[in-house]
């Protein structure tokens, strides 16, 4: 078993993913679980962005001295735009479900909800 070598940016993004998963697994408050899910999404987006980075290059807007050879990979950035919007949509959906749950059970604690339902 060898320790894999990964860059600092990957390490940061990966840590965010893991922190988020930890929150989803351990937290009992529904809102905290949803925040954790958002953290996972953020981590994934950062990971995607850093995969597209090329050392020493600039943003892929081709004006004033930035030619095709001086720009980073534009695809991951385009994908992340889409992924962010999808994350927002999921969060909005989840929050409205949480509002419904709160109206029905009067709590956001998942154990309480499970107990009230019996």
């Amino acid at each position: 078993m060898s320790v894999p070598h990964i860059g600092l940016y990957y390490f940061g993004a990966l840590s965010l993913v893991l922190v988020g998963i930890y929150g989803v697994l351990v937290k009992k408050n529904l809102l905290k679980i949803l925040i954790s899910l958002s953290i996972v999404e953020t981590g994934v987006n950062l990971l995607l962005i850093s995969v597209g980075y090329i050392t020493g290059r600039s943003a892929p807007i081709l004006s004033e001295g930035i030619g095709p050879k001086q720009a980073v990979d534009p695809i991951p950035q385009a994908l992340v735009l889409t992924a962010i919007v999808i994350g927002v949509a999921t969060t909005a959906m989840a929050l409205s479900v949480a509002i419904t749950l709160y109206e029905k059970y009067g709590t956001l604690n998942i154990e309480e909800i499970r107990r009230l339902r019996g």
Partner: protein
Amino acid sequence: MVSVLKRSLAIITLLIIGYWLAQGLAGVPFGQDRMLVGKYYLENVKAQTGAVNAVTAIVVNYRGFDTLGEVTVLFIASTGVGALLWRRKKRRTAKTEGSVVLRTGSELLFPFILMFGTYIFIHGHLTPGGGFPGGATIATAFLILYMAFVDYEIPHRLFEPLEGLAGMGYVLVGLIGLAIGSYFLFDWIWQTWHWGAANLGRLFSGGFIPIIYTLIGLKVGTELSGIVDSMLTEEVRE
């Protein structure tokens, strides 16, 4: 006790997942040039789409299908939130009015925020940004009004049809492409009519990107304000 057990189980799971992911990532070294399709985009983006911002050209033109899906996802969210929080009669139930600073500030800033949002989505093919950030900025203007005034509500009769119309507009632009250039989402303005070829790098260029981003900006703005509205109003019982 239970929670200690749960926590340690969670940490063990995390270690396994983390190790597994790091193994995979180690095979994709950071900062190296691995572009394949990306290089093609960078080399041809100006000639083929008339946009200088490669990211927006990819988002709207090359991979326009994704963006259509993205718009749909946001539409689903606003529809879903509306469906779940639907009440026969709804009213704002905020109790305290915003402070004088907030109220005056929001009224003063409102037109400028709208203008800035519009600026962002119109210049999507030239600068970082585009329809989604622009629309989100516009929605912020309405959010501030909601925070400042207890009885403010967005004009529902205008916003909901506008949201649908903007979405239909996007699909229609795609269908016109199907009719003119025989491909769905074909950039007929740039590739068939060659409009704006002399303006590369200025506002009137970029083929259908500004048009689509305007539609997206309107749609996102109305959608996000609609979501805010659904979440902030509550049922009135009579």
